[in-house]
């Protein structure tokens, strides 16, 4: 049997299967219908009634969306209600009916055309687009002029197919709870529909070009908002395949949400903190929904890599303050630029280095380019006024560097105080332990800073003198190498003894076996790519700290990475047969 597969842009994940409801676009009739002069008053009353209905619908939608998707999405209705009440617009409508002696429909059509002309003449694209809002409101009034109300589409939940959806239309239709999925000809990942669909958990595929031309009401549609695929009238075999895919996805999602809400405690009730490594402020919501209890590492490099010139203080500030607000009250740890070496920065014209991993990078580069570094530090301080920001400095090699950073930091604080700019006077300052030299100095470093963060990827590379991207030596890159473990153990234990917080933000935190060993060393803060949080959280919840600590202590006498791996895995499995189970969330 023939069936059609279409590919679009996946903008809201999930799988949906159901009957299609095609939404016709709202159009004005271009028909000019005259009325006798005596009917003018009645016609204006008819318009007035349609306006009242529209007002009621908009207010209702506003409160509904506010409840379901939050104040931000509801704002559009404040604007639409205000457009509805705009007296220039309304007097225009009345005047056209009265002077031209025409039906209200024609008046709406004329006023729409007038505003379209005005808005299209504007230079600014954002303002030009507001003609859609005027159109949206006028189209609503137009529909309400019809005496017969469109019957609320019967037949339960459907997959909504449309050419495009206006913002208010999208809000209205998606919030009714009878939409299984959405497929659109138009749209992109940042369109209003996409954002709304994600926040309402409705699988959505956009940018399908001509899905409206290929389906009719009542067709069966499979919609995969994860892959961006739409299948029209699939045969039973394909339907069954998708049924199970949907089942798996739904279970997975449920499991993730359940797990994200559960306390981060080991079986013997030792608290640990899963945190997220992210690069964009927009990732915070997703990270939190996966159980992140803060941002353990915000990489600020994208700010430098996305534009041809260096970012200015406000560019930094915008990103950091958005971060602070989105995560609030959870903490956000911002790592100052970790660039140089392999990640070149054309704006700074860094010379090609023979040995970039050992060259001018991270804090070394910042202390050489102080003006650039000051800009970043000032922005971080300014964004700290909510008191949930922490400053993290990468690649520290010697104590002198910490001293220089602190001096600079204090200078900037004094500047800001003089400018009467609010900031967190107690903003925590931490350093990354990535260089073995810093690791060996941990007992001295902890006296200088508020917290430590272990970047295990670089630490392992420097400790073992192995470039893991070099295929000839990559086999030597072993996170469980006893020497790496001794170093990490020393850092964690020293920090804990000194009463300092310590985080691991390298890949070791996301690897189940390594994470167990870190827990055994006394680590409590695990920061990782948020997609790994569920598996680490589930595993740590399935063990007792006491037991893990004992097993890990025994493993420290072993001679090779392989022995460590086998020993710990065997002992853990003997005690907790399900600890490494992947379960539904993988």
């Amino acid at each position, binding site marked *: 049997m023939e069936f059609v597969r279409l590919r679009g842009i996946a903008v809201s994940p999930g799988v949906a299967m159901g009957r299609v409801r095609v939404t016709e676009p709202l159009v004005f009739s271009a028909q000019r219908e005259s009325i006798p002069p005596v009917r003018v008053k009645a016609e204006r009353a008819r318009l007035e009634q349609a306006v009242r209905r529209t007002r009621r619908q908009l207010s209702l939608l506003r409160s509904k969306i506010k409840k379901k998707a939050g104040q931000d999405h509801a704002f559009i209705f404040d*604007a639409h209600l*205000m457009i509805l009440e705009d007296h220039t617009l309304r007097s225009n409508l009345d005047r056209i009916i009265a002077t031209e002696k025409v039906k209200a429909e024609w008046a709406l059509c004329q006023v729409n055309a007038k505003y379209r002309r005005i808005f299209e003449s504007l230079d600014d694209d954002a*303002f030009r687009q507001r003609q859609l809002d005027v159109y949206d409101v006028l189209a609503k009034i137009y529909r309400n002029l019809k005496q017969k109300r469109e019957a609320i589409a019967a037949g339960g939940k459907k997959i909504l197919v449309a050419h495009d959806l206006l913002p208010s239309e999208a809000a209205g239709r998606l919030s009714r709870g009878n939409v299984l999925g959405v497929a659109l000809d138009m749209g992109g990942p940042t369109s209003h529909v996409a954002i709304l669909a994600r926040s309402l958990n409705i699988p959505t595929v956009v940018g399908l070009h001509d899905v409206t031309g290929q389906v009719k009401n009542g067709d069966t549609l499979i919609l995969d908002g994860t892959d961006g695929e739409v299948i029209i009238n699939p045969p039973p075999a394909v339907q069954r395949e998708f049924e199970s895919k949907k089942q798996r996805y739904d279970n997975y999602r449920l499991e993730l949400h359940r797990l994200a809400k559960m306390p981060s405690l080991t079986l013997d009730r030792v608290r640990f903190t899963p945190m997220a490594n992210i690069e964009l402020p927009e990732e915070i919501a997703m990270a939190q929904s996966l159980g992140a209890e803060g941002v353990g590492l915000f990489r600020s490099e994208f700010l430098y890599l996305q534009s041809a010139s260096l970012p200015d203080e*406000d560019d930094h500030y915008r990103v950091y303050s958005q971060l602070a607000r989105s995560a609030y009250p959870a903490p956000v740890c911002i790592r100052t630029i970790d660039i140089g070496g392999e990640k070149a920065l054309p704006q700074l014209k860094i010379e090609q280095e023979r040995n970039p991993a050992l060259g001018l990078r991270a804090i070394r580069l910042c202390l050489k380019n102080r003006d650039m570094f000051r800009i970043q530090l000032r922005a971080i301080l300014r964004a700290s006024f909510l008191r949930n920001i922490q400053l993290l400095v990468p690649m520290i090699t010697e104590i002198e560097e910490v001293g220089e950073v602190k001096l600079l930091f204090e200078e900037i604080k004094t500047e800001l105080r003089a400018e009467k700019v609010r900031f967190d006077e107690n903003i925590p300052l931490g350093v990354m332990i990535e260089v073995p030299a810093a690791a060996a100095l941990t007992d001295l470093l902890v006296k200088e800073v508020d917290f430590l963060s272990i970047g295990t990827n670089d630490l392992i590379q420097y400790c073992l003198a192995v470039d893991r991207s070099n295929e000839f030596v990559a086999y030597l890159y072993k996170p469980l190498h006893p020497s790496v473990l001794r170093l990490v153990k020393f850092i964690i234990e020293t920090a804990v003894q000194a009463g300092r917080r310590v985080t691991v933000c390298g890949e070791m935190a996301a690897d189940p076996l390594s994470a167990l060993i870190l827990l055994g060393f006394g680590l409590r803060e695990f920061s990782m790519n948020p997609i790994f949080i569920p598996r680490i959280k589930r595993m740590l919840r399935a063990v007792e700290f006491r037991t893990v600590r004992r097993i890990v202590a025994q493993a420290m006498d072993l001679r090779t990475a392989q022995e460590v791996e086998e020993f710990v895995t065997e002992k853990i499995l003997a005690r907790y047969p399900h600890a490494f189970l992947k379960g539904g969330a993988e």
Partner: protein
Amino acid sequence: MVEKKLVIRNKLGLHARAAVKFVNLANRFSSKVKIIKNSAEIDGKSILGILTLAATQHSTITLKISGRDEKDAFKALTGLINDKFEEKE
């Protein structure tokens, strides 16, 4: 009548959200509120009027208010504009 030139400072300019705030505030006063940009003069209590001005960041507008409570209205509305419509940037 009070009249003054002002610069729109917030990043998004007098966009929809800011316009809603402006109209809501202007409606609390009985005075007439006019906004002039370049040669266009619009009613400051009309959201569509404001949006069609397309007042982007750094554009200069003239606020013209007349009526019984013009002083209070002027103070409130200039405050809103200078406060970047309570936006962060």
